[in-house]
């Protein structure tokens, strides 16, 4: 059930950028197919790394589709929601090593958690795009602070992962 839902969401993510693809249509279709294949492989074979690859390919496909687009894509929060929903459903369909299935109470809790995650992802992305759309003057300092923030985020994640795992 969750596996089929994950594949349907992945299909929606693949199809989303295709209508406005223009000359990149062929490349996007190939990337989308690759992402879908990887997702199906991960879900059917039970190989979580393939789901990660599928996520990255889908992000890449979406990123390339943005090359054709003028201005900010208003559907980006939907894509963010779709990506997280796909990941949550796909990982839920795989049993973690050494774990037994969740009880009905546990499954209800997990479903609620996915719902909150997905809605939260949509809100965070939407707010971020609104901030991006604010009429602020650009310039080298702004670019440098953006690069610094991104590098800082990656460094923070790396630090936390190293400390926790």
């Amino acid at each position, binding site marked *: 059930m969750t596996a089929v839902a994950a594949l349907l969401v992945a299909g929606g993510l693949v199809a989303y950028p295709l209508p406005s693809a223009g000359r990149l249509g062929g490349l996007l279709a190939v990337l989308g197919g690759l992402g879908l294949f990887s997702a199906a492989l991960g879900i059917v074979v039970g190989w*979580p790394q393939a*789901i*990660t690859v599928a*996520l*990255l390919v889908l*992000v*890449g496909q*979406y*990123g390339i589709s*943005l*090359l054709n687009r003028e201005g*900010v*894509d208003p559907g*980006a*929060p939907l*894509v*963010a929601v779709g*990506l*997280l929903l796909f*990941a*949550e459903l796909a*990982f839920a369909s*795989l049993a*973690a*090593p*050494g*774990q*037994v299935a*969740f*009880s*009905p*109470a*546990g499954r209800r*809790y997990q479903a609620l*958690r996915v719902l909150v*995650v997905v809605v*939260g*992802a949509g809100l*965070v*992305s*939407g707010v*971020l*795009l609104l901030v*991006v759309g604010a009429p602020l003057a650009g310039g080298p300092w702004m670019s440098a602070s*953006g*690069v610094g923030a*991104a590098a800082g*985020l*990656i460094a*923070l*994640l790396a630090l*936390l*992962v190293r*400390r*926790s*795992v």
Partner: protein
Amino acid sequence: MTRRPTYRLGAYVALAVVAVVGGLALARPELVALAASPALLVGLGLITGRRLDVAVGVAVDRQRGVEGQDLELLVTLTAIGRAARVEVAIVLPNGLTAIDDAVIVRLEAGVARSLRVAVRCERWGAYRLGAVRLRVVDPYGMFSATAATRPTTTLKVYPQAPVLRRLLAPLETQLQLGAVRSRHRATGVELAELRPYIPGDDARAISWRATARRQELWVAERHPERSGDVVLVLDTLAEARAGEAGTLDLAVRAATVLLSGHLARRDRVGIVGLGGTVTWLRPGMGAVQRYRLIDALLSSRILPTAVWAGAAGVPVRALPPQALVIGLSPLLDARVVAAFADLAGRSVDMALVELDPDAFLPSAADEADRLARRLWALERDNVRRRFLRRGVAVAPWRPHEPFETALTRMEAFRRTTRRASA
């Protein structure tokens, strides 16, 4: 608790990094917006997902139960160090079922929380209880932490023992007072015969009605009420089984019913387990003996083995002379059949309850299967007849029948042979 990162952690870190780097490289804010949510989830999950230790205690409201009875487990959980939301599931052995489902509870640091879990005893046996599976429910899904505690307490579930209206009467009784009418004459309730008075007879035995009728002294002789020795011999060498049910279950149920009935009649009851190794409990009476016998029954297991002592392994003190020996067996193994024949040759009064294995066999698939089944039935019938010829009452007991049906068949045969021998 064993904590493991979930697959999500790696995937979301990779997603956030690729999206941020891609957003910077392509100068597209949408990609950065895609990276924000997974990065936030990872960050929150890593900050809050510390190790957790939970102290678990399990207590059961009683040590003994009967099949079909519900009992309550009290699970006490204490989170050490930090608060957490935990999924609690009781791990029960086969034969016990939890009426309540697993639950998710929030544990505050250092505060004990108690849960009551209702458990139904489905099948007789001795169970080790107290295993609890715990799983920390991580709201961000970045870690899974599970733990399982070991069983700490024992629960004994006794088979249900309906009261029997009739029991086999031993041919010979013992000296102790009981409820079985002895064949001998002494002080008792039931009249045996009237005879003329002989000097030395007890004056209380004079039947004044007979004396008045015959104009001379007559005395009434009576049968005393005595107890008998009953030994239940369980075949623990072979059984027919289909899933959870098998002939051993029938044997244990029959033995429970019999020992309860005979002990209530003030008979001395003992038990012998006829398996690879012979186990026994000497005949005794009273409530303590009842618990001893049932505890011995609960540990009955079929152990297929080449080791075989046979009836020679049964000690003499486990089989008192003139005891009523009731064998409970599907008569599947030739060694057990030989052992019962050997026991019948001793100075004991023997009866056999054949626990019908047919109910536990799959239905015949084809004609060859049906033919083999018929041959097998003939062989078993031959075994039965051999016992009957030796004066041993054999009666089959099928799972759907009340046990009294088998007892009635055996009693009828014993009455006939007694009359014939008289």
